[in-house]
């Protein structure tokens, strides 16, 4: 059987999600038995420039090359996976107040600086995406499952379950009840509630859970005393995801 071709690509981002793919370690050798990875800039010299059976794209298209590359990858790939929160939602870079982008650029780089980049947006603002691997960073088990399912021609989507539920299954003390602006109740699980299990409130990096009640979250945050921070709290991830409200 001819080996499948997988391309792994990074646009502007922190590269933490492709590092997680690298963290699959020995399992990558197993993957290499059935698939070639002719392109992975972080790990090797590129050898083939398409077509690909599967493309994993990490990051947000911000530079001109990012946007051009994302479109080319789509043309040359049967299936495209958005890898991680930046590609899925825009993520932390998209939490910037874009109306002030020019002002901010001037303050950091001065008047003479010319930026050729645009505001951070999810991958879907530019190309069609077939599947998403959620999270900031992605969870290794979810990544493995999605990739294996797709390679076996199965639909990787499982039942939707909130971080809140995953957190309760672990019997953690509730941070929301301690007046922390935890996004667990409206956030898609799959991360094993890693943040609240370690005492850190959920930031919502996996995107919204199915039928999320975003309005109720907003109201509660205001009641809890976060009137001035609602945009900051929800703008980082949960409000970026308008697909499941």
């Amino acid at each position, binding site marked *: 059987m001819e080996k499948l071709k997988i391309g792994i690509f990074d646009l502007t981002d922190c590269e933490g999600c492709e*590092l997680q793919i690298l963290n699959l370690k020995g399992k990558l050798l197993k993957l290499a038995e059935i698939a070639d990875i002719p392109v992975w800039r972080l790990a090797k010299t590129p050898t083939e420039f398409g077509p690909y059976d599967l493309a994993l794209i990490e990051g947000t298209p911000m530079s001109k090359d990012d946007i051009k590359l994302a479109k080319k990858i789509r043309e040359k790939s049967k299936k495209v996976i958005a890898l991680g929160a930046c590609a899925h939602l825009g*993520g*932390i870079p998209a939490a910037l107040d874009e109306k002030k982008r020019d002002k901010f650029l001037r*303050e950091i780089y001065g008047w003479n600086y010319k*930026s050729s980049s645009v505001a951070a947006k999810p991958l879907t603002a530019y190309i069609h995406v077939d599947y998403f691997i959620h999270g900031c*960073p992605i969870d290794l088990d979810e990544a493995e499952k999605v990739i294996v399912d797709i390679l076996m021609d199965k639909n990787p989507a499982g039942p939707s379950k909130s971080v809140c539920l995953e957190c309760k299954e672990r019997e953690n003390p509730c941070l929301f009840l301690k007046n922390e602006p935890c996004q667990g109740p409206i956030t898609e699980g799959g991360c094993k509630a*890693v943040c609240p299990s*370690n005492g850190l409130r959920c930031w919502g990096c996996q995107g919204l859970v199915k039928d999320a009640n975003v309005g109720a979250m907003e109201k509660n945050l205001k009641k809890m005393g976060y009137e001035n921070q609602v945009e900051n709290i929800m703008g980082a991830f949960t409000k970026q995801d308008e697909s499941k409200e």
Partner: protein
Amino acid sequence: MKDILDKYICKIEGHGYLKLDYSHNKVQLVVDEGERLFEKLLVGRPYLDAPFITARICGVCPTAHTLASISALENAFQVEVNKNIEHLRRILLAGQIIQSHALHFFFLAAPDYIGLDNALEIADKKPAVFKMALALKEIGDDIVRTIGGRQVHPVTPTVGGFTKKFDKKLLIDLKKRIDANMHFSIEALDLAQTFKYPDFKNVTQYFALTNGINYDIIGGKITSTERVRADIQDYSLNIKEKVVGHSTAKHATHNKESFMVGALSRVNLQTKFLNPKAKTAMHNFKRIKFPSTNPFHINLAQAIEVVHFMEECSKLLGVIIDGKEPILKVPYKARKSSAAGAIEAPRGTLYHYYEIDDKGIIQKCDIITPTVQNLENIERDAEYILENTKKMSEDERYQLLEMLVRAYDPCITCSVH
């Protein structure tokens, strides 16, 4: 598609390429990442958002950013943490350095010296080396996962300590795993010593945080091989950033001169404070002596540091395990204030600075990453190499320059924040 994929230097973190003028020996390392503007993104947010958000500057050294932001905020609020918290942070940061060095040394740089292209080829042709690489990457990940809660983007560190308690049994088991993997780090250093490093000596000024007592990586004084000794709060007087036309990353200089930070700087400045196994291994080096002015020895210095930090983690874990049940969160009061914090990230000194108002909201933020400090020196070394390789073909010279950039382990992702 080929034009874009071939343009960028592979096996480095982030997007950069070389622009060369062979006839005039001019080199520009063009950094082409979108500006994410983290320093502005943080303004208007509560100070506790900084450790979470700044981690996202870089997936390769997120723990370093989290700890640098915490250090700055604790300096601002004058928080005094206890020894156990300090030790656990040092273990966590040492784990981060082992993770990052193991990744860079084996997966990105080593192929240049072994004559292969990538780690999968190493797995195929040099399985013993690959086994070493996986073991060291895994133990680094393990340390960060156990203390930080996750191997990429830590969740437990916070202002005043940690968000959770650590079961002593977890720490005892972690120490056992570190001790069991120690031999891999020494074998990796033996291997690093056999690499044929291109023979270029180009003196520069080497900067790192030092305290004159041990090989510390959190706090201390800004120190250089040319007798700079400055307080962290005076970082902006000593390290000045400038905007350059060809790069979305700024360049930093000291007195308008380029300088180097990172593994080689640290080893050059404080060889005498390395732990015993690292020191003994260095005494057995046949050809290479430190301090070294060869930038390719950055990779050797990384291997030295992996041994040192494995020993350090084992030692500090021993201290915590033998002590009383540690208290891992101290009370403090946030208030209107400003301060800088600095730590040694895998690639060198990382500075964070914050101004906080009376409601605990960030009003100003400044971040200077190690790679911003190295960029000017990379270009200077690259030009020096061009001047001294006129008999080589253009292709050979280009390969050598890419190898130089890779040896520096630039984190371009970090450099455009």
